[in-house]
């Protein structure tokens, strides 16, 4: 793997992570607001 490939891989991972975090955060918020994730389940 060349040095440039390494940077490209890091960038792709960062972009995917960005979307993953956005979706994870909003899904968790949705689950709590509709009552599917009750307070006692969160330590």
């Amino acid at each position, binding site marked *: 793997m060349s*040095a*440039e490939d*390494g*940077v*490209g891989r*890091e*960038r792709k991972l*960062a*972009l995917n*992570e*960005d*979307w*993953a*975090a*956005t*979706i*994870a*955060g*909003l899904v*968790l*918020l*949705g689950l*709590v*607001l509709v*009552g599917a*994730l*009750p*307070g006692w389940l*969160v*330590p």
Partner: protein
Amino acid sequence: MAEVETRQRSQVWWAVAGVAVVVVLGALTRYLEQNVPVFTKGTWLGGIAKSVEYPVYAILLGLLGNAVLTGLGFRDKLAAGFRTEFFIKTGLVLLGASINFAVIVKAAGPAIAQAFLLITLVFGFTWWLGGKLGVDSKLRALLASAVSICGVSAAIAAAGAVQARREQLAYTASLVIIFALPSIFLLPLAVDALGLSPAVAGAWIGGNIDTTAAVSAAGALVGEEALQIATIVKTTQNALLGVVAVALTAYFALKVERTGEAKVSGKALWERFPKFVLGFLAASIIATIFLESGGDKAAITTVNDLRTLFLILAFVSIGLEFKVAPLREAGWKPIGVFASAAVFNLLVGLGLASILFSGFNG
């Protein structure tokens, strides 16, 4: 072929083990945060234990885990599981739910003004000083982006824009974390010493500390209002990352590399725009509508607990990621540039936060 597959599978297992390490240390942080004040109540340690907040336990446990795993020779293999950026961004989307959208709208004006001025001044200063000291232009672009915008994620975007080497990215990321760690503790102390209001303190912290995870840690140490303003300011800086990355691509193509090929398009801007900013805004709008239409406030308390869990995982990861080795290879000049830029950022940031957020009342 089979060998490559086996290696990739083994890397995935190490990454999963890395995440498990973060979760275990996160659980330990939660346990200590909740129980140390109870265990030490009535003793001379009780007062101190009560004032120690979760970012302190999380970072210290992360650093301790880092030392143990380095000693055992496992740290680098597990590092793929130390996903600070994922944890902090998920935590920040959830944090959006605790901020009334009206506060974001009210803070947007001063936050955009501060982010625009700080990025321009700090990027310009770092670029100029790096040039004076003869630092390689690609490394200068990485250092200037990291110190003026949002630490590691800005360095990754800039590295893609200017086609920097992987070692230059690793080096900049190490500098960001080495400078961010002490700032998490020193800035809240300075806030106390200077007697800053929560809004000014939040704006100063948000505009100053490079990495978003460290901004949240320092903001949380000062208090909830400071954390909210620090996050709004830092999120605004994050949002401007795409603009700077595209400008760097164009500058390097036309002026430095002289290839004459500069891809400045709406698509490139969107590709580099940090999407979690949209999640943060959406969470604030959803929670504001939920509460204003008579939703249960206890649900938002649960969201806040979830947010704290993700912030803890991010802070543990900061401690686990801390690594000084790449610094030895690049010499003192880039460290000097980064340190001077950090001091410049500190002073200009304090001035701008005091002017723009002095009368702010969320």
